[in-house]
């Protein structure tokens, strides 16, 4: 770990952290604002939802939860929070070493007296710190919005906290998997399509899993591992799936170190 690289990396992420934080605050507050209306009209709404095609309801996770309860409604909001976090973490993962290589500053950095391990560790920690700041913003905003907009409805605080904490491991998946993919492909020219692909892809895989029939493809996506509706419904995590998630993260990060230490840094030719 090199404090110098960490600081530099962290500063590089700062603007993106602010942008994502503002977006997330808006998403949470705006959706939470409508909760009062939802809960009052719960009966009407649930009737209306029944007329929707089941696939559509499944796609938005509306088949599993009762939108008239605080947590039921919040699990719906949190799915969008997860989607944003997934894209943000994927972006950091894919960009971690590839941006320097694409902009050809990697030669500058790696000709300094630092090891590849130090470089990768510093970069990973800076990205994780940036994600943690985003998490804090999400947590504080969620807490405030629920305090303001729950309108006296009861909810289980423990489940709420479990739901909030789920993004911690959730985002590491996208960071780690993004990183290892970026090291496996020859050259990442632009990070955005990769990040959107991984983030949305994982979301869609879970959302439309019902349509794929018996193929259990959704088991590989963190949106399933940390299914907000499941957490709210059962008041806990799906332990085997969370363990699977953690295993994927560990393998991805270990493989990333292995690949990065052996990597030939590309140059213009």
């Amino acid at each position: 770990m090199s404090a110098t690289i960490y600081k530099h990396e962290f500063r590089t992420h700062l603007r993106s952290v602010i942008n994502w934080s503002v977006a997330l605050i808006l998403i949470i507050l705006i959706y939470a604002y409508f909760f009062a209306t939802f809960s009052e009209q719960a009966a009407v709404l649930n009737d209306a939802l029944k007329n929707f095609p089941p696939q559509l309801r499944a796609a938005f996770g509306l088949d599993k939860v009762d939108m008239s309860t605080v947590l039921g409604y919040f699990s719906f909001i949190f799915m969008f929070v997860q989607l944003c976090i997934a894209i943000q973490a994927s972006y950091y993962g894919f960009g971690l070493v590839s941006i320097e290589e694409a902009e050809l500053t990697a030669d500058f950095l790696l000709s300094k007296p630092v090891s590849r391990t130090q470089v990768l560790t510093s970069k990973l920690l800076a990205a994780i710190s940036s994600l943690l700041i985003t998490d804090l913003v999400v947590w504080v905003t969620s807490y405030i919005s629920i305090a303001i907009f729950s309108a006296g409805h009861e909810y289980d605080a423990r489940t709420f906290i479990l739901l909030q904490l789920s993004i911690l491991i959730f985002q590491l998946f996208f960071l780690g998997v993004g990183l290892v993919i970026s090291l496996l492909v020859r050259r990442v020219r632009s990070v955005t399509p990769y990040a959107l692909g991984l983030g949305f892809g994982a979301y869609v895989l879970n959302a439309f899993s019902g349509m794929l029939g018996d193929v259990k493809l959704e088991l590989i996506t963190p949106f399933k591992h940390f299914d907000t509706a499941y957490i709210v419904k059962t008041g806990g995590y799906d332990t085997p799936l969370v363990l699977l998630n953690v295993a994927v993260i560990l393998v991805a990060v270990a493989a990333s170190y292995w690949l990065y230490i052996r990597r030939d840094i590309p140059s213009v030719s």
Partner: protein
Amino acid sequence: MSIIEVTNLTKFYGKSRGIIDVSFAEEEGEIFGFIGPNGAGKSTTIRLLLSLIHPTSGSAKVFGKDVTRYGPELRRDIGYLPSEVYYYEGMKVIDLLKYSASFYDRDCTQRIKDLSDLMELELNRRISDLSYGNKKKVGIVQGLLHSPKLLFLDEPTAGLDPLMQRKFFNLIREENARGVTVFFSSHILGEVQRLCTRVGIIREGKIVEISNIRALQQNNYKKVRVTAEGLDPAAFELPGVTNMQTEDGTLNFFFKGDVNAVLQKISALQVEDVSIEEPTLEEIFMHYYE
């Protein structure tokens, strides 16, 4: 002790050739010129020595230690000026230089000031606003600010105007006088001739010659030019004669060997004009490439 010691170093990028079986050594305090056209493997060699890329086979040592194993430790005393300079576009020059200095455990503030004064580099400009030549200056200051013991210069003069080139050469000579070993890669022979004591010539990934510059010029080849009536090129088909060209009754060729053999042939002719001189490095170089 050799500062750089390269033994049978080979690098392939997948199937495409980087360098093949390169071996050479550079002694302390030398300015070693590394000459070759674009794509010959000059940058590949330097990037291997900095362990930016890893060898396919063979080994390289800097300061007596293997570059792959001791890379971070060795790079404390290495300065590198890449051929293409790319820095963090959003940063200011001074911030980049401070970032660069923060990797070394010594205070580089005064040195940054001295070097940027010398190279007339404005410290408060944004990297993205700099011209290629100015970026090159950033590269020079960045490569020298920690007072390295070994300098890798990869085509360093591209983009610098002649005045700056001269300042830069003086700077390199001063560094060298202080004991800094310089590895100077270039395809411009004039500058190598001005600066280097020894040269290695690389062609299509392979070293074709390593020699003292003086030796290369004096002992190896003579450039012979004979103008005479009834000149018969065939008469000069001696061992050691190369690059023979006839032009309007004038015969040009390179000769390596006992010069008396040529003189005997010439003395048999009714000569109008004759010259025997040392070829420029440029001519030697072209000779290696044809």
